[in-house]
């Protein structure tokens, strides 16, 4: 390691249960995260195939701080290219979504096919006038040397991942079998239908959202609605699953009847008298594919959360925006064979989630307050020791083991 690369993070070797605040505030470390995590060696979420059903359909997305375009070509194949013209670097695509026959940079009309291959350069061979040829590209200029950056793409059961890294391992191998099983549970052999988007900007470090969905300890405490209605609480049957490298996880749970009891009464969030005036928001109907669990919260490191909480389904895309901010984009979906009643149910339950949701609005809030705590004196470390100091999966939810698992992996990949 070069001296300039050395990062001033004070962290006992091997420790994963005391996380230094500096990893949430240090700009140099963040730059390294973009390189080593978002741009190399990892698959990142870009969208759903159902968002671009027809040839020529495209959607603008992002990996880390780099804008990409997910586009379906005329053969139906999904490609992901960087939104940056090879000519003069223009972020040429300014539409969030649409349909195109070719990708054209308006500045000098360099055009690319839907795989990102450069197919046209105006006046490439010069412009003939008065018996001479003006301009033209020099000898040796080849279209093939000037394609858009074409990313590796993996479409798994309609979910689109991409990577800037040509040496990336196959997606299934990246995900691992333990996580893949829960991924399949939601997506395999299903046609998705997009119900809509929610977008929020959260003033906190992006890792805090990964932590939040690898933290089964908090939902039964912070979120009254989860305790009250049995959607997530300490006395429910649950399993914490982690891949063998510690980076991805699933929090699996099975709803109970909620109400009082030791798991609720110890918490200040439990409200004895709380009763809904209109309980259609929690009109839960068991779907055959659940096979037991009523909630699976999948985190695929670093860029996405996949949510099934009763009948509400979403992907949540983490897009870092500097060391202390990230954008969080929710894509709520259902299945094409849903009845209108099921669609309405998914939409009603969506009131629990997103930037205004009964159980998600305050996740964003606590992440903001955490970031402020780190920023005001970053010489400290978090105490991430519920259920010990080690890592791996477990069979209950009073634990911070999934967060520690992620930091075991993080320290390895980041050399920190």
């Amino acid at each position, binding site marked *: 390691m070069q001296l300039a690369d050395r990062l001033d993070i004070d962290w006992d070797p091997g420790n994963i249960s005391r996380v230094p605040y500096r990893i949430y505030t240090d700009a140099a470390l963040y730059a390294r995260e973009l390189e080593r995590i978002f741009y190399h060696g990892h698959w990142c979420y870009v969208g759903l195939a159902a968002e671009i059903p027809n040839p020529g359909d495209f959607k603008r997305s992002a990996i880390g701080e780099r804008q990409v375009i997910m586009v379906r070509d005329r053969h139906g194949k999904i490609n992901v290219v960087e939104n940056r013209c090879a000519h003069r670097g223009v972020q040429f695509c300014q539409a969030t979504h649409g349909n195109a026959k070719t990708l054209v940079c308006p500045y000098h009309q360099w055009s690319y096919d839907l795989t990102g291959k450069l197919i046209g350069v105006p006046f490439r061979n010069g412009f003939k006038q008065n018996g001479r040829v003006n301009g033209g590209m020099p000898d040796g200029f080849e279209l093939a040397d000037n394609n858009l950056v074409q990313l590796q793409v993996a479409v798994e059961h309609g979910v689109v991942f991409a990577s800037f890294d040509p040496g990336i391992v196959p997606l299934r191998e990246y995900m691992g079998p333990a996580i893949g099983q829960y991924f399949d549970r939601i997506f395999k052999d299903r046609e998705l239908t997009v119900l809509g*988007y929610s977008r929020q900007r959260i003033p906190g470090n992006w890792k805090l959202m990964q932590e939040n969905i690898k933290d089964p300890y908090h939902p039964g405490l912070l979120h009254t609605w989860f305790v009250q209605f049995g959607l997530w609480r300490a006395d429910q049957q649950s399993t914490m699953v982690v891949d063998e490298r510690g980076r991805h996880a699933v929090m699996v749970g099975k709803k109970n009847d909620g109400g009082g009891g030791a798991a609720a009464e110890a918490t200040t969030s439990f409200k004895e008298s709380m009763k809904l005036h209109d309980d259609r928001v929690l009109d839960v109907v068991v779907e055959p594919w659940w096979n037991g669990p009523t909630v699976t919260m999948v985190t695929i490191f670093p860029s996405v959360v996949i949510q099934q909480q009763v009948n509400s389904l979403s992907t949540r895309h983490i897009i870092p925006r500097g060391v202390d901010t990230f954008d969080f984009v929710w894509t709520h979906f259902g299945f094409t064979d849903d009845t209108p009643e099921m669609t309405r149910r998914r939409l009603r339950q969506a009131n629990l989630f997103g*930037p205004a949701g009964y159980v998600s609005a305050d996740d964003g*809030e606590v992440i903001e307050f955490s970031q402020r705590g780190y920023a005001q004196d970053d010489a400290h470390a978090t105490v991430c020791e519920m259920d010990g100091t080690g890592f791996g999966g477990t069979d209950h939810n009073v634990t911070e083991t999934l967060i520690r698992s992620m930091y075991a992996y993080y320290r390895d990949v980041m050399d920190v």
Partner: protein
Amino acid sequence: MLAMGVSLDARIAIEDLYATYVALLDARDYDPWIELFVEDCVYQVKARENEERGFPLAALAFESKGMLRDRIFGITNTLFHEPYYQRHLVTNFRIRVDERAGYRVDANYLVCRTKAGELTEVYNTGRFRDRVVELDGAFFFAEKRAIYDSELIPNSLIYPI
């Protein structure tokens, strides 16, 4: 004098309904705020993107006064958040007679947010696309849909718009 079939009296009464709505919301006086709606009201805060692309998802989507009461309980008793003042400005009313019942009312809105010890910021802006009905001489919201331009919600949306 009628503009698109709307009497001056009705226009005044509708604008007065909005003034009451805003005054109650900005004062966090929620119980009387709920009483400005009919029983099976529609209340939505929805991204313009979803509205224009035909996606049904809304950040908040309620279908009764009961759900509004639950939301008020939720924000006053359950949701942990940093409190803030809201200041609504509602303008550019466009009032037409609705073919179903009552009046179709569109109006631009802007909500500023002020947190304790912080500068005031523009929080959310968009257009109300509402339906107002008259019952026994009084006016109520049958539908209130805040379609917001603001692409990104600045972290969270707690209080009603």
